[in-house]
Every structure is written in structure tokens, then in C-alpha cells.
């Protein structure tokens, strides 16, 4: 029995960063802006969290710093995709490459080339988990209420489904999208910060290692609802927890095969549920108020 609880604990712990990432992506994509760049955003969040925490010596200031920096990143992402109407897949991939480059460079500049990672103040645990885990679960509930029971939530979903209808009653589609992108990016950044300031208390290069993509897969697998996304995230978290289990048990399967589990689950989930029709109808299509000839 104890081992079951132990397993669940690992599942929830290892899935929290993905949960934040996925909820952030969910908000953005519901508003109609595709986000392939969550991986880069999470890395930036993880790094700036460590920087903030190491400067101030306070993990919450670190988290706040991560929120601000990823919020600015979101603003830039929004400028490229909403105002300049650049291809959202291309900008997203660029963001991933940029995120990896900038965090690696700055990390080496600030913390030096030592192989020893600098330890910083990290989140405290309350009961079995640390505080952000509870925030994540609370956010699933709040987001569900927000998206279905507030006018603002309806507007976000409307902007992603049929922006013309939103425009026809005099609301500003692009403003709604900007707000969603910035808010979503901040939540994604928090997911990154949880990685470096949660279980660990240091930054390593490329530490997000695919969680941004897994988060995107969770949104699709979860059929674009907050609760569905959470359940999907737990499935992926279970995959990651299994990795630890199998590695510890040394059952004679090559490590590489075991490490594949979370990614394999992602591929299967997206292949099975990624068909069009689930997502917002206007996803990835920039909005312009062009007039008929």
C-alpha cells in the first residue's frame, strides 16, 4: 500500500511542471494562438527563476522574476504572431532554439563554467508536496470556472473559435489574444520555475528536456479542457514515474528503452487524439480586420 502512495507522490511531483506548461498552452491555444514554443518558455522560466532566487535569496521572488521574464517573452511572441502575423509554428520553433541558447549562455556567464551547480533557495513542502503542486491543482479548478463561467473566459474561447463573431459585437480580438498569450506564457514560465526551484534547487542546461512538447500533447490529449489536460498530464507523469521505478528495480531492460516511456506515451496519445476537430476552429490563423473588396 505504501508503495502505491509512494508511486502517486512521484507521479504528482513529476507532473506538476508539465501541468503548469499545459495550462498555459491551453489558454493560449483556446484564444487561437498556437504555441510550439513552450519548451523554450519553460527553459527561460527555469533559468530566470534560479537567477531571481539566487539574487534575492527568496524562492518566491525567484518565481516572481520568472513570471515577469516569461511574461515579456510572451509579449514578444504575441507581437510576432498577432501583430506581425508571422507563422506560429516557425516562431515557436525559433523560440525553442532561442530559449536553449540564451539560457545556456547566460548561465555560464553568471554562474561560471563549474560543473558544480549553484544551489539556491527552493520551494518548501507542506504535507507530502511543495506549495506549487497545490497551486497547480487549484488552478485546474479556477481555470475551468474561468473558461466556462465568466464572460472573459467565453471571449477567449470565442476568439479561438470564430474571431469574426467576437469582432461583430465590437470586441477587440487581438487584445483578447494578447492578454491570453501573456497570461499563458507566465503560467508556462511558472512550470519552468517549478522544475528548477521545486524538486531541485539549481539550473542545468536544457533541463526541460521535452516537457514543453509533452505539455502541448497533454492539451490535445485532454481535448482542450482544463480537467482533461490535468488527467492527461497525470498519465504522462505516470510514465515518468515508471522510469524511476524501472531504473531502481533494474529489471534488465536497457535504460534507453525505459527513458523512452514518457515520449512514447506522448506519440501514442497525439496519434490517437490529435486529429482535427477537437481544437479551436481558428487555431493558428492570425486575425485581421480586413474588409471585403
Amino acid at each position, binding site marked *: 500500500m505504501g508503495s502505491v502512495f509512494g508511486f502517486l507522490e512521484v507521479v504528482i511531483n513529476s507532473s506538476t511542471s508539465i501541468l503548469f506548461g499545459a495550462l498555459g498552452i491551453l489558454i493560449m491555444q483556446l484564444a487561437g494562438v498556437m504555441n510550439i514554443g513552450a519548451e523554450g518558455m519553460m527553459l527561460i522560466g527555469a533559468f530566470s527563476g534560479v537567477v531571481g532566487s539566487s539574487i534575492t535569496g527568496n524562492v518566491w521572488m525567484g518565481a516572481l522574476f520568472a513570471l515577469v521574464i516569461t511574461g515579456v517573452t510572451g509579449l514578444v511572441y504575441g507581437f510576432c504572431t498577432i501583430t506581425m502575423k508571422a507563422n506560429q509554428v516557425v516562431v515557436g520553433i525559433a523560440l525553442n532554439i532561442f530559449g536553449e541558447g540564451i539560457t545556456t549562455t547566460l548561465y555560464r556567464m553568471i554562474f561560471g563554467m563549474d560543473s558544480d551547480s549553484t544551489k539556491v533557495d527552493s520551494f518548501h513542502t507542506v504535507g507530502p508536496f511543495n506549495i506549487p503542486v497545490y497551486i497547480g491543482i487549484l488552478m485546474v479548478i479556477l481555470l475551468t470556472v474561468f473558461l466556462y463561467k*465568466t464572460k472573459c473566459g*467565453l471571449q477567449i474561447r470565442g476568439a479561438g*473559435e470564430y474571431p469574426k463573431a467576437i469582432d*461583430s459585437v465590437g470586441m477587440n480580438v487581438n487584445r483578447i489574444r494578447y492578454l491570453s498569450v501573456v497570461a499563458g506564457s507566465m503560467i508556462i514560465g511558472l512550470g519552468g520555475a517549478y522544475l528548477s526551484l521545486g524538486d531541485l534547487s539549481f539550473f542545468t542546461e536544457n533541463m526541460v528536456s521535452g516537457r514543453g512538447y509533452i505539455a502541448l500533447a497533454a492539451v490535445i490529449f485532454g481535448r482542450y479542457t482544463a480537467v482533461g489536460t490535468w488527467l492527461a498530464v497525470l498519465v504522462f507523469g505516470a510514465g515518468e514515474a515508471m522510469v524511476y521505478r524501472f531504473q531502481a528495480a533494474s529489471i534488465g531492460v536497457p535504460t534507453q528503452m525505459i527513458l523512452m516511456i514518457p515520449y512514447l506515451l506522448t506519440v501514442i496519445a497525439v496519434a490517437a487524439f490529435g486529429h482535427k476537430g477537437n481544437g479551436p476552429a481558428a487555431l493558428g490563423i492570425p486575425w485581421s480586420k480586413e474588409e471585403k473588396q
Partner: protein
Amino acid sequence: MADMLELRNISKLYGRNYANKNISLTVKSGEVHCLLGENGAGKSTLMNVLYGLTKPDSGEIFIDGSEVSILSPRDAIRYGIGMVHQHFMLIPAMTVVDNIILSMDESSGLILNQKKIAKRIREIAGKYGFEVDPFMKVSDLSVGQQQRVEIIKAIYHDCRLLILDEPTAVLTPRETEELYAIIERFRKENKSVIFISHKLHEVMHVSDVISVLRNGECIATLNKEETDEASLAACMVGKEVSFTVEKEKAHPGEAVLEVSGLSTKGKKGNLAVDDLSLTVHSGEIYGVAGVDGNGQAELIETITGLVKSESGKVRILGHDMTNRTPGEILDQGISHIPADRQSTGILMHESLEKNLTLYDYRNPEYRKGIFMDWKKAKKQAEDMVEKYGVKTPGLSLNIEYLSGGNQQKAVVARELEKKPELLIAAHPTRGVDIGAIEFIHGEIVKARDQGCAVLLISTELDEIMALSDRIGVIYDGRIIGEMDREEATVEKIGMLMAGMEENERKAV
């Protein structure tokens, strides 16, 4: 008392063309005012100006005698103007209530009270004599129901002037009658309606006052009593038009399309096409009359290979084409003008040129080695635009920015220029103006005279009667009556369309 609405000298330029040129008109309270005109005459532009979606270059708007500035739909709604667009402004993935909430200015409290608003929606619907389930998803509603949701949206904002942009284009005859009843109710409450249309008979039916627009100008404003359909038509196109299609007697050849015992399941799982048989010969137009939703869509989809049949056979030019792929079927020399042009007829986000030359990549004539001969394709597109009178500022413009009628002309041009053996035409003139209807009908007859077999599906009885050589009436998935054009009368077809078969009528 001042007029409810007055538009004074509204002008709007697009490029070098006037979409609206010094248009003035007044609408009184309790008046149904029709805007009549061909596609591209400037009706929608004028209404978009009034509704704050388009900024005019000059002109003033007066409401109840005082000048107002309407910069966004928000302003329009505040002045009591509601608009039902031709393409509905509803979010399909959301419920009726959520759609209404989205259009509201105020919101009481942070958390929405959907039940309270649903109650108000039911009240409004009840008052206007129809029913709507506020918690249904819009995508699950019929087109007619969706339109009513749009009307409720307007009423919810206490609208005193309702703009209906071609409201009957998507409705079945029965739904049209129900819409007329709603309009009548508006008139009784001393509210005004602006009704945009290019259908003469409905204009004569619903309106009190008719303004005719042509090429962006208001040609005439007439009271209904002072005018009739013929003079309105003349006003609209600038020349007298005849509603009959000039054609020689048909010389049918061998069978091109043979459908026998065909059954296909519909979306709800029932048999939408039920043991249906018909034959179309080369050189004849076979018209399928019937009320929309009696299996026409499924019949076409099965013939063109878009859905699989349960049983029965489709033979084209003697080959068994049952349940083959659309590509294989099109290769038999088939053209298809689909009923819903926006979803299956055109690529909305592609240029007019790409849309016109969509099939050319399969044609060796348009190939240079392994590459497309774009010059030739462009030439072909230019010729089509010229021949079919597609109004556009350029070939490279995305087709989504053309008016509905011009999109339809582009589809017709592409399909007819393929020189098909069999043409399947569903509502070929839907949303197209009179001048263009005449032209499209002429082209279909020309194709017939060159030996093309034509399967015409239309809910407009006028169109069936004008074009067909033989007429079959579809009811509940079956052809329940078939006759030569000479034997057909409106009464006879009308009875069949209502589902009364030959023997039943004899019994009556």
C-alpha cells in the same frame, strides 16, 4: 415625428470603385424597408456602414432626427440597431446562451448566471412564436434555428431596427414563412426592419418600401403599391429580363448516370437515401425537385464518392463507380457544383486564380515537364473571370474577400470549363443576382446541347421548371414521381414535394 433612421449621402470607395455613392434613404418606425440589388450593388457595404463594421468615406447617419456617429457595432447596438449577417456571427462550438452572453455589453457579477439568461431567451422566443433550447450547441442547430438565435440576440439588446442580410437564402420554404411571421410581429410592435434581398417575389411579399441599388447607387425608392416585379427587375439590372430560359428541345442520347436502388445513411444514422433510382442521359437536364433535407445532399455525396452507400449501384458511362474514390469518379469527366460552396466548393484562404485552376494540375495541357505551366493556368483563369463576369480587383485576391455571388460564379466557371460528360449542379445560382442567373442557366443549357448530361438539384421550383427536360421529385430519400417537363405543373410537383404520391392523389 422624425424618421427612425436617415442615411444621408453615404459614400464608400474601395480602390477606384464606389461601393456606395451618395446613398440616402430613410426608414420609418414600423416599416419594412427592402434593399434590392444585384450582388456587388453595395447593399451589404451600406449595412456594414450602418452597423459600424465599415467606416464610410463621407455621409451622415441620423437616428430619431439627431446625428450620430457609429464607429463600432457596440455603438450600433446602443442605438438599437441589430444585424443578422448572411454568414451568422455565432460560435458553433458554444451553446446558445454563451453566444448571447458574448454579445452583451454589461455583465452582472463575476460568475455568469447562465440559467437566468436562458430564461430570458425562452421568454423572447415564446413571445415571437418559436422555440429554442438555450443549452443546445449552435453547431447542433439547423440553419433556420441559428438564424432565430441571431434574431434573439438582436431583440435581447432591445433592437428597434433589425437588419436582415439575405435572410432567406439559407432557409427552407417553411422556415421562410416562419421568418415572415417574425417580421410581421416586428412591424406590429412599431419596430423597423431592413431586409436585404435580390429575390423579387419575397421583396414584394414582405416590404412596405423598396429601395433599389445598382452599382453602388440608389436608383429608386418605391412604395410597394406603386410597383411590380417586372419593373423592379428592370430597375435592378437596368434592362428587361425574362425569367424563362431559351432552349431547344433536348435530344437525349445514351444513359450517362444510372443510379439504381441506392441507399445511403444520413448523419443521424437513418437512411437518408432510400432505394433511390434515376437515370440521366447525355444531352438532357434532369431536375430533382424537393424540399431541402429530403436526401438531396446525401444523394450527391454518394454519387461523387464523398460518402459510401449501404446498397445499390451507381454507374457512370457504363462503368460501375459505386463507392469508388472521388478522384476516380471525377476522372470519368464529372463536374460538381456543390450546394455549400464555402465548405466544399472553394478554398477560402486561397487566391481566386488558384481556385479557378484547381484541377489543372491533373491536366497534361497545363504541364511543362514535371512542372505546372503557371502562365497558361493564369491565362485560363483570366479568361474565366472575363467570360463569367466575376467581379474582382485582381486574380491574386483571396476568394474569401469576394461576395457570395462572385464566389459562386467562380465555382460555376471552373466546373463548366472542364467540359464535363456529367454535370452535377446543386443550387447552381444560389446567392447569385438575376443577370448572372440568366448567364449561368444559359451556360448549363449550352453544355447540355454539347451532349453533357446534367443532374440539377434545386429547392427553387422556378429554376427546376425553367431548366429541366425531365423532372423527378425527391421525398424522404426516394424519387416519388418522375415526368417530362411538358407534363409538369407547379401544382403537380408541389403535391409530390409534400409527399403525396400519384395513387394517393387519385384516392383524394
